[in-house]
């Protein structure tokens, strides 16, 4: 679906229809590039998306980790966990336009529907930074303690209503109401971690652990209360609502499962994944799932829950004991997966399910962003 969306956008904007219609020809906007954060060499490595050749690298000190791009592709922002900063990079000049100080240990960030500001969860200082991308102006809101993920809640017009922030150490979700300058803390199940919002159901879905693992369903229209729980066979760490708002997928690391959740019926169907699945991308009727404790990406057939997933050999992630994380980024017909322990990035062709290239020269590859027109998070979703 994303591939179709991208091509549709390209046709509407920059693509030559004749080329775009040519079978087997993948066309990218001229400036579309891959940005990979090198957490250990303190650089952002830039690759040409088409040729996969290195373009340049940009110094971003203090351990750059997560990296994202604005939907128009003009800016990339990078979180530096050890530097308590966010670097905003101009993709036209490939230089750092703003270096913004935020709270301690920024780990996850989200752009809001204005596409002009981002929200950064600061795990170490228990707050959230709101940053204006144009000038780097930052304001900070105290939320709660611990690792943070967020869900952006929009109104029917796609405008920002609330920012939900999970505080994993406090077992709360802080709801930020930017219009009212109000923060409301809501008690949820133990250690909330992983959220997303469906504009179709108007609900926020939160991975939470308790005596029974579940996805907690929260209603922004009912004082942010947990209105129902969708039981899961294990604890989910990452949940993603599909663009149609009807379906969410969640990885259940300890059970090596991927859960497909019907958000309207609130029912769950589980599918086999690899060892400790983490991030994933949905491509049509397949899910590409990054595994942490084995050097593979699992390809899960969403049409057949009983089928064993196919494995694509990639490099190794960093594993701490029996846990860790691994990201993934889809663009067009390619999936990019960082191999943090091997200091490489595997590029997988989604059609052939084969590794077509391995990007190297990156120490500790962590986050990956694709910057180009029409790429990235858009609202409503």
């Amino acid at each position, binding site marked *: 679906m994303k591939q179709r969306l991208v091509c549709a956008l390209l046709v509407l904007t920059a693509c030559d229809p004749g080329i775009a219609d040519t079978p087997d020809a993948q066309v990218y906007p001229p400036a579309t590039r891959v940005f990979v954060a090198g957490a250990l060499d303190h650089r952002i490595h830039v690759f040409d998306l088409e040729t996969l050749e290195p373009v340049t690298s940009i110094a971003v000190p203090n351990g750059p980790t997560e990296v994202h791009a604005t939907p128009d592709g003009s800016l990339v922002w990078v979180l530096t966990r050890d530097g308590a900063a966010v670097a905003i990079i101009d993709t036209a000049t490939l230089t750092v336009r703003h270096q913004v100080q935020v*709270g301690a240990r920024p780990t996850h960030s989200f752009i809001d529907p204005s596409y002009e500001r981002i929200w950064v969860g600061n795990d170490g*200082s228990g707050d959230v930074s709101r940053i204006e991308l144009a000038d780097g102006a930052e304001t900070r809101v*105290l939320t709660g303690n*611990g690792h943070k993920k967020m869900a952006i809640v929009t109104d029917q017009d796609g405008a920002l209503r609330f920012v939900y922030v999970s505080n*994993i*150490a*406090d077992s709360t979700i802080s709801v930020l109401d930017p219009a009212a300058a109000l923060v409301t803390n809501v*008690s949820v199940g133990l*250690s909330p971690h992983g959220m997303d919002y469906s504009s179709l159901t108007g609900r926020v879905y939160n991975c939470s652990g308790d005596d029974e693992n579940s996805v907690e369903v929260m209603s922004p229209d009912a004082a942010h209360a947990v209105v129902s729980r969708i039981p899961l066979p294990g604890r989910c760490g990452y949940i993603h609502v599909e663009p149609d708002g009807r379906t969410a997928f969640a990885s259940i690391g300890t059970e090596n499962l991927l859960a497909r959740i019907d958000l309207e019926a609130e029912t769950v169907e589980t599918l086999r994944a690899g060892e400790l699945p983490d991030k994933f991308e949905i491509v049509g009727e397949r899910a590409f799932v990054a595994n942490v404790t084995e050097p593979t990406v699992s390809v899960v057939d969403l049409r057949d829950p009983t089928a064993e997933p196919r494995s694509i050999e990639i490099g190794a992630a960093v594993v701490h004991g029996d*846990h860790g994380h691994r990201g993934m980024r889809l663009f067009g017909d390619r999936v990019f997966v960082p191999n943090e322990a091997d200091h490489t990035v595997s590029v997988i062709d989604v059609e052939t399910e084969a590794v077509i290239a391995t990007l190297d020269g990156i120490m500790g590859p962590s986050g990956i962003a694709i910057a180009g027109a029409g790429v990235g998070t858009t609202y409503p979703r």
Partner: protein
Amino acid sequence: MRRLVVLLVLLAGTASAQERPRPGGSLRVEGYADDDSTLVLRPHVSGRAAVDEWIVGGAYGADVVSSASIDVVTRASRPIEEARHQIDVDAGWYGERAGNLAAGYTLALEPDFETHGLTLRGGVDLDDERMWHGSANLAFAFNRIRAVVDPTFERESATAQLGLALARILGRGTLARATLEGSVTGGFQASAYRNVRLGDWQGMPYEGDDPAAGPWVFSGVSGVARERHPELRLRARVGVELAQDLGSMLALVARAAFYGDDWGIVAGDLAAELRWEPERALLLRLGLRGYVQHHAWFWRQRYASADETQGFVTDDKELGPMRSYTLTLAAAIPIDPSVRLDVRADGTRYEYPGFTLLFDKHALAVQIGVVWTP
């Protein structure tokens, strides 16, 4: 005078000892460990030289800290490993009878804390019989506080402290001393790292498998507030000490002190130490100390809201109700006429009856040092 000096050194307490320090040097290493996951290694080296009536000296010490204590983990911080370095320089004039006057400068550096300290001290015999001795010290310290996790964070604080001591020989082998100390601190005195949980929360060790959760999770949290302490603190401490020669080369030192400050903390401190010198220069010490503290007025086990205590909230267990008991064993062992070996062990049990996440803690500090006095 010599007897007075010996007894004062025996006290070796809060007011400065008046004996002219002997030139020489020392090298010490201390190891500290507690059952709250903190390890500290403290090397320390010092030297001192005589120039006419002057004694000049310098010292360097470091605290190498590795900690995953409850103070660290409940702040959602990672375990810390850091070092504190301290340099002291000191110069003093020691007259034969008129008294002494000394000044010292201290620089202490941590990744998130910087201290500059200046100390002036002096002592003088107050009567011709030299039965009375008075001493005073005046200290100033300026602190710059940063946060290693937030480069934008920088605060300052400053302290001025005055100490007065009056010692008197009460009889053969008996010395008493009274001390009075007062200080005022202004500026930032909270933690740069702490958020205080509000509401009727509960904390529990996390037993799940999410590495992002950390070792503790909490439930029932209704909100959070940045730790905030008053920016002015006035403190006072009065103490009395008694040193008694028991004969048979035994001496007993007893101390009692009372502390109070305008944050509402009041504390009492009782200590006794038995010293035995079975042969010349071999000194064995056995000490006991008990300490009890009432909490600061704004300290709470739980805060319903930050407004409950005028916006001042804390999660510092050292500001809550607290007791501690310490057993000390120490020995100074002569190696040759100019070199001795110092060994010391302190075992302490700390109790925090109002702190939900850590009711008690046990610590052991062991120090070994070589002292050279030619």
